[in-house]
Structure formats: C-alpha cells, structure tokens
C-alpha cells in the first residue's frame, strides 16, 4: 500500500506527495503530458529534442546541472510517445532546491540558437548510436509506419529521420515549449523523507507564480481498425534473421490492457513461458524470443519478436509463432499457469516499489491515467482475471488475419546454417 496525499494548485498543477521515512532521500518527479504523438508529422523528434534543451539552464539558473550537483542530487529524463518525464533524487534536506530548479525551467527556460545547435548534434549522434550503428537498431523505424497509417505512433520518439531533427527551428522549439510546458499540463510527485504539508507549501511557493497557460485540447487522428494482414521483408547486414509480429490492441486506459499484459507474460514472461520452453529450448527454432505490450495511452501494440537460430528459415519460424499463438486458444492456461503470471506481476511491482524513484514515477503516471490510487488496486485487478477472459482477449487481439509482420532478414551465411 502506497499512501499519498494530493492537491491541485490554482494554476492547475497537480501535486502528489508520498512520505517514506525509511530513506534519507527525496525524489521529485515532474511529468509533462506531452510526447512524440503531439508533434507535427514534418517535425518529428521535437518533443525529445526539447527534453535535451530542458537541461540548458533557465532564467535564474544558468547551469541546471551545477545546482543539482551542489545539492548532492542526480537527475535524468526520458521522452516517450505519450509523456516527457523529469526526475531528481537528492538528500531530503535539499527538497526545496529541487523544486526551485523544476519550477524555474517550467516558467522560463533558456532557449538559444547555440544551445539548439549543440543539442541537435547530440541528438543526431544519439540517433546514430542507438538506431543506425546497432545491429537490428532500425527495426522500429521500419515497423512503426507499417503498423500505423494515421496515428502519430507511426514515427519513433527520436524522429522519423535525421533531416527532421536538422530542420527544427528555435521558434518551433519555443512554441512547442510554450504550448506544452505549463502547470496545467504537468503532474508533480514527491516521494521520500518529506513532510506532506511542507511539500504542498513549497510547491505553492515555487510553482504558483508559474502562470496558468491555456492548454490546447489534444485531437489526434485515430488509427483505423486493421482489417487485413500485412507483411514486409527487408534485408540487412546482420548475422541472423528476425521476425517481428505486431497486433493492434486497446489503450492503457482500457480494462482489456491488464488481460493483454498477462497474455504476453504467458507467452514470454520468464524461462517457464510457452515461447521460451517450446521454441527456444524444445524445438530450437529461436535463439531468443519475446512478447510484450507497448502500453500506450492510445490504442497500442501487442508485440512478438524473435531472433532465429542459424539455419532456420523465416517462414518456418513464422509458422511456429502462429502455432503458439493459436495454442493459447486451443490450449488455454490452467489455473496454475495463470496464477504463475499473476504472482510474477505482484513480485515485480513490489520489487520496483522498494525504490522511492519508481514510486514517484508511478504515482505521477497513474495520476495521469486518472487516479494515482490505481497503483494500489492493480494487484487485485490482475488477481481477478479469469481463464475465460484470457481466452477472449487472446482471441480478439492475436488474430492472424490482422497482424503486421516484418521479416528482418540477414544477408550473411551465419543465418543459413
């Protein structure tokens, strides 16, 4: 049970506080309800580039990093399709320094041409390092536009293409910041050895002057229902073939999300899972295989991804995956198998929450979903899922006639024998 208190400031900033006296530290987590899905299709990568620029100092704080270090803190951030999240972990006595830092960059960020030019370069190197210079690194670059035709999930967070990042102007960055980085579009969560009242007092002190700005209502094109299967093959200079199959599924807010999560765990959660046992250890078709859900706020994807054993043809691997997906319906899990994945979910949650950072991150995210208290209800929600629901969900989502499949083929002899 994670107890918390919450308040909304006059300017719309939602504040959540969780007290945990077992630590001398505090975490300040600031979630902005903006991600790559809010970008224009010709300026993809903007949300993430702005995340980099958020470390470039603000009106009263020329060097963000220096102040964090002075306070003994550590900080980082990440951008997803849906959100941009910033956190600082620091000794609890320096809580106010953290709030000052966050409030200043929410209120008046330094945006300069020079800063933009450098971070643009850094992000381009990030693009190269993570997506171009890694074997299999461009899979999602290819897969996203295959799986999505209309919705902005069709481009990756880093951007569609390096040229997009190169073309972003300072004005565009500024107007994106002005539109999305405002109190009413953010959730502040604080966890650690802190006093609740003091947290709310300090939050008001530092954030209330950050005026209410009007937030645009989000209207995104919805993805049409996938009515037929689609396939694509690419050949790359990698040693082994991969197969990636994706299926459309519900959004994070939908009740079906939890069931789909368990379906993916039945398939690939741990070494006792069906795909691992049957296709890696038993039949040796794949050297590794995974299944997971993307968990996006708009309707997301159910992903099955495997790397083939050398000598196995992609068609053969594909057949085996299909058989395993069908087997979920023809051979649904017995109680013990279902209990197993529920137990695993419970353990993962408890382990994750033994660190205040993850508690703070989760509290803000669940509040964004509608209610931070969902965090305390989830284990029960998972517990109540029945085999019948699993069958129904698997039948609905894992429909082979609507799947999108990428065959990522190797051109090397290692793949052939």
């Amino acid at each position, binding site marked *: 049970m994670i107890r918390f208190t919450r308040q909304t400031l006059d300017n719309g900033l939602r504040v959540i506080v969780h007290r*945990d006296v*077992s630590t*001398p530290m505090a975490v300040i987590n600031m979630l902005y309800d903006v991600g790559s899905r809010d970008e224009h299709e010709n300026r993809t990568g903007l949300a993430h580039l702005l995340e980099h620029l958020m470390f470039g100092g603000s009106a*009263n*704080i020329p060097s963000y990093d220096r102040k964090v*270090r*002075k*306070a*003994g*803190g*550590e900080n980082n951030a990440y951008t997803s399709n849906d959100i941009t999240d910033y956190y600082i*972990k*620091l*000794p*609890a*006595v*320096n809580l106010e*320094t953290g709030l*000052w830092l966050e*409030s200043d960059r929410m*209120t008046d960020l330094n945006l300069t041409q020079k800063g933009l030019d*450098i*971070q643009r*370069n*850094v*992000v*381009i*190197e*990030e693009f*190269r*390092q993570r997506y171009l*210079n*890694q*074997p299999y690194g461009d899979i999602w670059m290819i897969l996203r536009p295959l799986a999505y035709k209309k919705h902005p999930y069709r481009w990756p967070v880093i951007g569609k293409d390096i040229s997009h990042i190169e073309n972003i102007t300072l004005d565009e960055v500024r107007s994106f910041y002005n539109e999305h980085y405002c109190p009413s579009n953010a959730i502040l969560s604080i966890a650690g050895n802190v006093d609740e009242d003091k947290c709310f007092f300090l939050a008001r002190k530092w954030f209330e002057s950050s005026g209410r700005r009007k937030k645009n209502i989000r209207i995104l094109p919805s993805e049409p229902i996938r009515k037929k299967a689609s396939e694509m093959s690419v050949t790359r*200079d*990698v*040693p*082994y073939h991969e197969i990636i199959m994706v299926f459309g599924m519900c959004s994070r807010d939908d009740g079906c999300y939890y069931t789909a999560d368990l379906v993916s765990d039945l398939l690939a959660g*741990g*070494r*006792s899972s069906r795909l691992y*046992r049957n296709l890696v*250890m038993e039949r*040796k078709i794949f*050297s590794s295989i995974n299944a997971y859900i993307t968990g996006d706020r708009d309707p997301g994807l159910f992903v099955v991804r495997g790397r083939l*054993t050398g000598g196995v043809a992609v068609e053969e691997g594909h057949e085996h995956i299909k058989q395993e997906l069908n087997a979920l319906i023809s051979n649904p899990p017995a109680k*013990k198998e279902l*209990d*197993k994945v529920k*137990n*695993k*979910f*419970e*353990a*993962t949650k*408890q*382990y994750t929450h*033994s*660190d*205040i950072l993850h508690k703070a991150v989760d509290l803000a995210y669940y509040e964004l979903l509608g209610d931070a208290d969902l965090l305390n209800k989830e284990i029960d929600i998972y517990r109540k899922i029945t085999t019948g629901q699993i069958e129904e969900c698997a039948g609905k989502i894992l429909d082979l006639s609507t799947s999108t499949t990428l065959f990522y083929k190797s051109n090397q002899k290692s793949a052939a024998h």
Partner: protein
Amino acid sequence: MKRSRAPKTGKYEGPGDIRPAVAKLRNSVPVYMVSAGSQPVVKIDLMFKAGAWWQNKSLVASTVNAILNEGTIESNGEEIANRIDYYGSYLNTWSDRDNAFISLICLSKHIDSILPLLAEITRYPSFPERELNIYLQRLKQGYITEKTRVSSLAREKFALALFGGSHPYGKNIRIQDFSNLTTEDLFNFHASYYNSNTCRIIVSGRYDEQKMAGKLDGLFGGNDWKTGEFSATTKLRKNPSGEKRFIINSNRAVQSALRVGRELFNMHNPDYLGMMVLNSILGGHFGSRLMQNIREKKGYTYGIGSLLVSLRHSGFLTIVSEVGTGYGKAAIKEIYRELDKLRKKPVSKRELELTRSHMLGEMLRGFDGPFAWSESIRNLIEQDLDADYYTKLTNTIKEITPGDLQELAGKYLSPSDMYEVVAGNVAVMQEKKD
C-alpha cells in the same frame, strides 16, 4: 518572491553506519544481513570466487554459472523454471573476471518455498548435455552479433592491449572456443570453485534475520562442500602490447567507438580513493569535464565517460565514447587536452566543492533502499574489503586537496601511458581526414 534567490542547500550526513550484521554459518560462510526497505521483498546473493580468472579453458567459468539452473540431480530445467516463476521469483546468475554470482529475488512470503531450490541449483547441478549445447549455440550467436558492434570491437582490443592474450583479463574469446567445452569441464570447475571456502551470502530486504540465518545454515552451512585445498592457480604474466594505438575497421559503421586508457591498480592501492575523485571530475557523470566539453560544448557524441575498474589482480582506467565518423580525431584531441589540463592546472576550489557534494550525494544514494545498499556491500566483499572502506572514501572526498589531485593526475594521466583504440569505418574516416 524572488526566483533568482536560490534556496539554501542544507548539510546532509553520509550514509551513517552502513555495516551489515554478519552471521556465520557452521562452516564459517559469512552471511551479511541488510534488513531494510518498505516492501515485502527479499533478495539473496550468493558469491563465489569462480570468475574467468580461475578457468583454464575459455568459457568454462561463465558456462558453469549460466546453466546451473538447467538441471540438478533432482529436477530438470523446465521444472526449475516452473517453480521459480510460479513463486513470482527471479533467479539471475552472472559471472565476471573474478567472481560468479547467483541472485534470487522473491516476495518475502514465498521465501520458504523457494530457498531449497536455490541450494539445489547451487550445489547439485547436473549440467545436462543437451542444454549445454543449446546454451553454447545461443552464446555463439550472441558473440557473432556482438562482433558487429564497434563498441564491442574496441572493448576487446583494449583489454587485449592492456593485459595481453594469454592473461585472463586480456584474453579474447575465439569462435572455436564454443565447440570445445564438455560437461566434464563444467563438473570439474564446479567442484573446485563452487564451495563453502569462497562462498559469501548477502541477504537484503524485509525478512526475519534470525529465521533466515537458521534456514541458510541448514542449506549452506554443512561441512560437506569444501574443497581440500583452494587452488590458487598460477597465472601467466601480463604481456601488455608495445604498440599503443590501434585502428579497427568496421565497414558499415556510422560512428567510431573510442577507448583511451591504461592499466592502474585495484581498490587496495592507497591512491585508489583519490583516483575515484579525479575520475569523477574527468568523466564520472553528466557534469564532468569530458561530458561538458565533448558532448555539451562540441556535440561530437551522445555520451562520453571515464570508468575506474578495480579487479582482484589489477585495475584500469578507461575513457569510453562513440562519436560520429569524422569527429574521432577531434574527440581524441580533446580527451588528451582534458588529461593535460588536470596535470597542469589545479582544480578550482569551486569545482572541487561541487565534486565533494556530488560524490557525497552519490554515496548516500548507494545506500538508499535495501537493494542499492546490498549492492554497495557486495562491491566491497568482491574485493575482500570491509565497510570501513566507505568511511575512508567519505574522508577522502571531504579532505582531498587540489594539490593531491594534481599530483595523482601527474602520476597516472600521462598521455604517453595511454592506450588508444578506434573502431570505425576506416575508408570514411580517411575521406573525412578523421
């Protein structure tokens, strides 16, 4: 309210008394107890002196460790996986140059159900041939895939250059090694190195200390898994390369992987503590000199850092980055410029104060929560050090002077001692005069 007025930063204490309670099993295996945390989870780490250092055949140490859970004299791999997953627990095994680890995480309420299995896996593995072959096949695929990454190529070459190809820290894996292992090799290695002589146990999270000690004593406390003599194999000498600069070609690379560094020493050397501070300033974090210069000023890279590694029989410093093809030369020039600055100019008072507060905060985080804490303790045990080491580190952080740092830089950061590896697309590098 004036936003320009920064709130006062407060003084914070170090992590305080971080010494874990220590229980001894009947056979003297020590159990370090870290009881802390807010959630009903417990983690048990077993550590053995059974890393690559001890093997006389490539891949033996890591393979023994990796397939412990593929079968025991009582259960097969599938049964083991089912039991571990059924109780929602996680079993991780890994090994490095010096040590081997078996780590179990589970809900406190299930510990009694799963603990006997941990002992079974650790003490009575059956190393089935079929599973061994599957494992080696998958490992080989991983190895072949790794070879396509410039960062892996640079890392391998760097180790080889520092220690030489016959030394356990320098030796590179070759493709034929994957077809050279037998189950007999595994049984022999397991019998010699997974035993109570070198076993260390760390338990962290929420649990009853007394009950836990009793259970562990029943499972691991017997005198029946000692080896007669702990075989300290004599190792070949280090044979560092005379050549110090290496370029490795990788045809399709769009970035070059860089490694610059040298052999140093391990945590037992009196200069190690000061070097930790120096390394932090040089490239230990986002605000460090290398990161600020080469990423934040020049934009050559997504990331650059320097790493101080302590091993049982040596240690080294390495600067690591991947830079756009075309920026390699310029980045290396800047790396040397930063090394040079540390040697020629004392660190300013302001920068040193920032480093002190940063590192003290880092230490505090190292003991925040039961699992960070147990990991910090494990790092010491690995090196046969005790918790007093952190007191010494705290003192060094608080007391080291710019003069001390400059002296260390003069001693250890000389460009002529540095090895340098660049892995990237040589043709494009030449075209771009990189």
